[in-house]
């Protein structure tokens, strides 16, 4: 399934919108380039200007959502999509949760649809300081090390069969089931679905050991793997 990012304008200042998108594109070029986006707005804004600001950052706009943009959308040939209700979160990481014993899971949760995500990305070279890797809508497997100052990002899980000395960000598009696994845990930062911890908070018996990171009740947990 194609991951879609919703962009909500909170101002009608097109220059400000453009500036913010540009700064985002600078920080995360791999993520922003070609990112599929749906436009929303909380204030009345010129759709044509809004659209060109978003497009100039390299994102691909697939439609708009919300009454404020509906009227102009037809003229620009853009489809109008339903608002995000929050209920449609795909069951990413289904395979992962299935293998973890979850006897305490509430009965009412429907069984997740099997493997919505099929893609994964494999990297066999060391990731050096200053390099940034983003696996869009996929798991990321690295059979080498992630050096200090490097950043690996995936919408799914991250597997590192070497040392993690840089930053690892799993579940980048909000998947709270995503996990990070590595053979040697010495990260600068780890994050899952926006919840992060820096090296200082990560001193523990798992330092330098094989470990996994996951979210439990909204908090990051680190666990030894051996």
């Amino acid at each position, binding site marked *: 399934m194609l991951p879609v990012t919703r962009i909500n304008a909170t101002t009608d200042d097109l220059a400000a919108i453009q500036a913010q998108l540009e700064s985002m594109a600078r920080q995360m070029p791999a993520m922003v380039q070609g990112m599929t986006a749906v436009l929303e707005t909380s204030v009345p804004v010129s759709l044509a200007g809004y659209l060109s600001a978003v497009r100039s950052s390299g994102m691909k706009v697939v439609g708009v959502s919300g009454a404020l943009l509906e009227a102009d959308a037809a003229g620009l040939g853009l489809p109008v999509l339903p608002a995000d209700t929050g209920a449609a979160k795909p069951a990413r990481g289904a395979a992962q949760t299935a293998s973890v014993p979850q006897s305490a899971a509430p009965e009412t949760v429907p069984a997740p649809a099997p493997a919505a995500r099929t893609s994964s990305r494999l990297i066999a070279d060391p990731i*050096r*300081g*200053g390099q940034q890797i983003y696996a869009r809508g996929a798991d990321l497997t690295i059979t*080498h090390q992630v*050096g200090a100052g*490097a950043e690996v990002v995936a919408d799914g899980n991250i597997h590192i069969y070497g040392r993690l*000395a840089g930053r690892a960000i799993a579940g980048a598009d909000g998947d709270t089931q995503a996990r990070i696994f590595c053979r040697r845990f010495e990260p600068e930062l780890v994050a899952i679905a926006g919840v992060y911890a820096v090296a200082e908070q990560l001193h523990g018996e798992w330092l330098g050991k094989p470990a996994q990171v996951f979210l439990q009740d909204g908090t990051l947990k680190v666990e030894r793997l051996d």
Partner: protein
Amino acid sequence: MTKIVVVTSGKGGVGKTTTSASFATGLAQRGKKVAVIDFDVGLRNLDLIMGCERRVVFDFVNVIQGEASLRQALIKDKTFPNLHILAASQTRDKEALTPEGVEKVLNDLRSEGFDYVVCDSPAGIERGAHLAMYFADEALVVTNPEVSSVRDSDRVLGLLASKTRRVERNEARIKEHLVLTRYNPARVLKGEMLSLEDVTEILAIPVLGVIPESTAVLNSSNAGTPVITLPDADAGQAYDDLVSRFLGEDRPLRFTTVEKKGLFSKWLGG
């Protein structure tokens, strides 16, 4: 077939120019036709270490801008006639280096039949450093056994793997070699320096040479003779090993462990 070798590091003062000078001289000693180019426009040093600073008439930027021919600008080494130096400009700024200009000079050196072109990179990751590595076939990554140097070398290795012509053309990747300089096994034992094993673990590239911390390096730089030409100096021998290894010879690493002092040298205060 001309091979272009960049000597780079990220961090300054780790021994790039010393390594470039000795490496180029070592190749020339073995009969190769070698040109060594100083890419550090504005801060030229290579000519000093090669001892040809008083013979610089035209420089790299003059050639790029068409103010002099390559033959006019190449300075022939006094000891090895098959070794040539192309000095950096001291007066121009870095903007004078252009990708087209650098490519033309390298192509001209190719057609002149040079075996090796050694590109002495400036510190940093800006234009000069980028252009020095962009056309390279192999890279010597010079690193000191301390964390900031290792981190900068890691960054440079990332650039070598992503921002070079070989990558853009989908050719085989640049062959990377680690040159660990200023190595002092005694200080490693005391925990004042990273060990060779620490550095190779972090950088994950093969070691081409370990150059011991040595007063001979400073002395030879001041004298304008590359340290490799001093057969009695430990650093000179280490560079000699390095060049041989680069050309495929199997030589064990030396100067990586603390030498036990003999009874005599103790008595003599050695």
